[in-house]
């Protein structure tokens, strides 16, 4: 066999390995990872977005919107769940703008552990932010920083950065995170999920005035698809 060609072949394959290794080292881990790193070091993406989505919208504990809103949308979510991230980042702003700000609905957060133990850390932080009436802000700021499932990305540092960006007192949040009030919230969400057969996230449920709590079936999480399902449920 032609020795020169074998050498060229080996060289091409070796070069390919080197190229891929360099590309993965430089840009690997994907854009979401890069976004996470950026938001963790520069207070730009997570904070302002998390603030502006909810600016001026009443928040109390785990509820977003006016208490008098006739319809309640309950959202079961896990801070580690990628689809929850998608819904919160891409669709929630539209829902807040068109349904919550107008007083048509209020949204209740129900954080449940679906992905793994690291979710508990995130949920405790989120519910503790609820005691400062900024649950939804912190939740969104955490989604902006979401890493791989069960990679341990929900650290004290992540929580601290998220809290700072959305104006949540970190010291108070850490103090509150392990209180009975937060534990009770976690238990309430888990019990409610169990009672209604919720076994995945995100799961949505609607409750109209005097109506039963029933799951909202959605065929997609994109703003248009979700709001179409919401409109149908509100009719």
């Amino acid at each position: 066999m032609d020795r020169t060609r074998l050498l060229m072949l080996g060289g091409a394959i070796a070069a390919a390995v080197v190229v891929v290794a360099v590309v993965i080292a430089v840009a690997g881990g994907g854009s979401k990872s890069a976004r996470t790193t950026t938001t963790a070091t520069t207070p730009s993406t997570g904070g302002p977005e998390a603030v502006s989505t909810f600016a001026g919208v009443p928040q109390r504990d785990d509820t977003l919107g006016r208490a008098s809103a006739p319809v309640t949308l309950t959202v079961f979510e896990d801070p580690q769940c990628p689809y929850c991230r998608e819904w919160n980042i891409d669709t929630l702003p539209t829902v807040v703008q068109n349904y919550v700000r107008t007083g048509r609905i209020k949204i209740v957060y129900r954080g449940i552990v679906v992905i793994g133990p690291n979710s508990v850390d995130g949920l405790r932080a989120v519910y503790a932010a609820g005691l400062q009436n900024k649950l939804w802000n912190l939740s969104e700021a955490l989604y902006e920083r979401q890493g791989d499932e069960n990679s341990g990305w929900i650290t004290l540092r992540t929580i601290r950065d998220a809290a700072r960006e959305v104006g949540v007192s970190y010291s108070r949040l850490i103090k509150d995170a392990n209180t009975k009030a937060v534990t009770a919230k976690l238990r309430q969400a888990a019990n409610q999920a169990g009672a209604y057969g919720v076994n995945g996230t995100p799961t949505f449920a609607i409750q109209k005035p005097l109506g039963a709590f029933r799951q909202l079936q959605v065929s997609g999480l994109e703003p248009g698809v979700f709001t179409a399902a919401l409109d149908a449920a509100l009719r």
Partner: protein
Amino acid sequence: MRLRGAIAAACVVGLGIAGYLTYVHYAHTAPVCTTGGCETVQKSKYAELAGVPVALLGLVAYGVLLGLAVVRGVEAALAGVFVAAVGVVFSGYLLWAQLGPIGAICQWCLGNDLTIAVVAALYVVRMLTETAE
């Protein structure tokens, strides 16, 4: 000629897979899936490289490989080996990501793995047998 035809045919299969996954990415729809993990893989951070969907990179790569299949000469074969080898190594990385960090398998990705492996093997054979111009 036959070998280059086989390479071209395999590239067309690859174009189909990468094209479909690129469409799914930009259309924000879920891919047809029997393994149950396609959407998880599609929405994972490994589905993009520096903000570019890996499916689109695959589409471009198969396009280049198809173009090289119609060009005669050792140089074209060598370039094909290089591009296909990049594809195989990168597909291996993505397979590792599916089995490891993502924890979900995408049938389309497995189809692509098989296709790029076939294309690479054919290009190696071509490289060793191509008649010098």
